[in-house]
Structures are given as C-alpha cells and as structure tokens.
C-alpha cells in the first residue's frame, strides 16, 4: 500500500472574486507503515492538504491515489482533528464504536475492537464517560482510538495536539509514538511544531507558505522506538535546526502579515 499525492494544487475563491492560492504542485508519497510529517508555517495550506487527502475538500487540480489496496472493505482514511470532534452525545465507548457501526460489523466484533483501542490509548475505565467529563488530552486519546478503530489504510492527524497545553502535549507525543510502534499504521501528520515533527516522523516534508510548496523532504534517521530523551540528541537538534532554517523567514513573514 502506498499513498501518492500527485501534483495537488488548491486555489480558494472568496465571495468577491478574489483568489488565494493555498497549495501548488504538491508531490508527496506515503509509504506503507510510514510516519510522514508535514510541517510548515501558518498559512502554508498544510491542513488543506490533509483535508484533500481525507476527501473532505476537492483539489483544484491533481489527485490522490491509494496504490495497491487489496480489499475495499477498509476505509482509506480516518482523521484525528485538532478540535477533537468527538460526538458530545456519545460516551467514550460509543464514540469509538462509531466507525465500526457505520461499517456494519457484527455487534460482538465492534465491542471487541472498541475495547481494544480504548485499552491501547489508556482510557480503560472511562468507557461510560461523556466527552465533556474528560480533559483535553483524554479527549484526543478518544479521537485517536476512534480513528484507529475504523482500521483505515492511512491515519490522518491534523495538528492533533496543538489545542493541548505544553506538558500534556509532550506526554501525548510520547504516547502516540508508542501507539505507532504497536500498530505500525501509515500516518500523515500535520503540525507546525518542529520538535514534534522530528520526534514523530520517519520523514518530514517542509512546506513553504502561500502558495504551499514542498521545499524539502527530510528523512529522519533516528532509531525507533523513540523516547522523550531523544530531544537532547545532537542529531535530533541538527534536524530541528535544518527544518527551522527553512521555516524561520517565512514564519516571521507570517507573523508580520498577521500583525497588519
């Protein structure tokens, strides 16, 4: 299985005839079991790219192809949103059950799947809680379990931890890394956080801003499983510095523009 993003461009039109070019000629591929991170300054269209891959937004040109998928019963993608996007009227368990329900799996199998992923993300004992009773970190765990329970070919994560506080974020990065070791799903991960990109990614694609284009794809040659301490590793810092070198001018530009 391989996901190929082929010459994707996206131009938004606003109501008054103005046009914003968000993405231009994006070529990327996500290999089987690969953790691919897309990093870029704000306004580089990285979330737009994810939405296009998820089929939640049409591309202006180009296409996304899932190569070599043997059976069609599994969904192509499942998304973990920055805003968690949990159904507030469903308990933790029933949120995780949503995908298997929609796929029409038998009741017993659904329950087993849901329980497996609830346990995997460390929410055992919280099955009957409603989302509003959970902290941000726990909500995002539910969202991850819900996406995984649908067994997608490619897991899409759209800045999943940027709504969390710094400490929770560090913990969640660590746990996601462990979950990845266990599931070895193909992941397309969007973030603006360079540390996070290096920590999680097998490869990091750096996007420029407006229009978003791929500046460089950097393979991260750090051993797995990775733990928090790796962030002190000189090699880790070198990668982070390399990425920051691509982004810093543009991030400043973005800042100046927002200030206008």
């Amino acid at each position, binding site marked *: 299985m391989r996901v190929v993003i082929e010459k994707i461009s996206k131009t938004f039109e606003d109501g008054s005839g103005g046009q914003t070019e968000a993405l231009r000629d994006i070529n990327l591929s996500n290999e089987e079991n690969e953790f691919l991170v897309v990093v870029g300054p704000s306004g580089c269209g990285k979330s737009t790219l994810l939405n296009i891959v*998820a*089929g*939640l937004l049409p591309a202006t040109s180009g296409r996304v192809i899932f190569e070599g998928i043997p059976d069609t019963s599994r*969904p192509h*993608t*499942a*998304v973990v*949103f920055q*805003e968690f*996007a*949990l*159904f*507030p*009227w*469903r308990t933790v368990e029933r949120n995780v059950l*949503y*995908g298997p329900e*929609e*796929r029409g799996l038998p009741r017993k199998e659904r329950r087993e799947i849901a329980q497996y992923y609830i346990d995997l993300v460390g929410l055992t004992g919280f099955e009957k809680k*409603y*989302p*509003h009773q959970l902290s941000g970190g726990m909500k995002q765990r539910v969202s991850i379990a*819900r996406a995984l329970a*649908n067994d997608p070919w490619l897991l*899409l994560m759209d800045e999943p931890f940027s709504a969390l506080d710094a400490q929770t974020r560090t913990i969640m990065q660590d746990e996601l890394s462990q979950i990845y070791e266990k599931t070895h799903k193909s992941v397309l991960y969007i973030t603006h956080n360079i540390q996070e990109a290096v920590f999680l990614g097998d490869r990091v694609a750096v996007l420029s801003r407006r229009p978003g284009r791929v500046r460089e794809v950097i393979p991260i040659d750090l051993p797995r499983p990775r733990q928090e301490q790796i962030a002190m590793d000189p090699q880790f810092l070198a990668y982070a510095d390399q990425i920051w070198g691509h982004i810093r001018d543009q991030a400043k530009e973005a800042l100046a523009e927002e200030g206008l």
Partner: protein
Amino acid sequence: MSEDCQARSGAVVQDKTAFMVRREHRLLSLIFILALFGVWELIVRLGLVSPLFLPAPSAILITGYKMALSGEIFRHIGASLWRIFWGFSCAAVIGTLVGILLGFFSVAESIGNPIIASTYPIPKIAILPLLILWLGIGEYSKIAVIGLGVFFPMVINVYTGVRNADPVLIKAAVSLGSSRRRIILKVILPSALPMIFAGLKLGIGIALLLVVAAEMIAADAGIGFMILTSADLMQTTKLMFGISILSMLGLIFSWLIDRLERLCIPWKE
C-alpha cells in the same frame, strides 16, 4: 511556618467580589408568596374591595374544591388538555421534520424559507375564523390553530439547530464512513436536540394561549370557555379559579418538558 500565627496589624485584603455570589433564598420566596396571599385575604375580609371584583384566595380555593367535587372542572381541563395534546404533538413532530429538511437541504430551504417568513408573523388567532370555515366549529379548527401556533417556533428553532450543527462533527462522521442519511440521524438530529427542546418550551406556552383564545371564540367546554362564561355571569371566583388552573398547567408543562429534556440530553452539563 511559625510566622503564620503571629499577631499582625494592617489592612487585610478583602474579597471584593463577594456580592457576585448568588445564593438561593428558598425560604424567602415561600414567605413572600404566603405574605402576598395573606395581605390579599385581609384586604377582602376587611371589606376594602368588593369580592365581586377581587374574591379572597380562600373563596377561590373553596370554589375550586366544589368544582372538583362536582367534576365540572375536570370536564373543562380535560377538553383543553385534549386539544393541546393533539395540536401540540402533531405540530412538534411535523415542525421538527420540516425544520430538519429546511436546515439540511438547500432546495427545501429556498422553497420553504420565504413561505415561513411570510406566514410566521400572522397572529394565529386571526386565522381561526378561516379555520372554522374550513374545518367546522368543532375540535378540528381548535386543534389546527394550536398546531399552527406551535409549528412555527418548532420549525424556526429546529432549523437554527440544524444550521448550527458543528461542521467538524459532520466532517468526522463523513470520514468515519457515514452516508448523508446516516449523518442526519446520527449527527444532525442529536446536535439539534437542545434547540428542539427550546422550540417545545416556546410552543407549549403558545399552545396554552391559543387554546384559551380558541375556546373563548367558540366552544362548549374548556378552561377558556369556563373563564368567559364565568365573567358573563359575574362569577368572579370561578373566573379566578380558571386563571389559577392555567398558571398551574403552565408550570406543569414546563416541568414535564424539563424532565424530558434531561432524559433525552444526558450529555448536557
């Protein structure tokens, strides 16, 4: 931390927001209501006001007791409740369905919204003569006018609820494989539930208003009928008892809807 206990002098910082703490004064509410009735009773007993214009609370209670014994009051309450029940429940169901259609399908919205916008402002009681012409003077015209009154707040609230459904939840459902029909059932409908209940609460008040109005125009039973005939016969105590029944019905209805809401929306904080 032995310093803690030392005697100190100086300006101590006070909580300046103490007045913002709202407390419940249950006893006070009760005492005030009782006092109000007490003063009312006293004014009538002392002959300051003629009981013909303002009967004493005790007289109203006694009249109510007599009407309950003879079963007369239950005939009126039953007639009104029956009309409210059919008008309200039909309008609640149809209003919810129409609201969802308008909110979800742009074609329905383009057709329906102008019609609703132009018929909504009509005072429903003004349509009653027309409804009587169409449906006869019996129960159907009364049920229809109540239904019309409840229908509009239902449609408008449900429509708003559907339109305000969080788009990211719909995206999440799509990405988890839901079809459009499933999304309406599993995302839109629960998202709109709080607004559906807001519509029901508005609707029940309107239903009570319209049933009384309709019964005053043409009926041979019902609270509205009872109030009007009591006034014609200068039976002020009976009239006042009818009004108290309406107050109680209103309270009971909103209590019931509150209970139902808590039952249907257990995720509400």
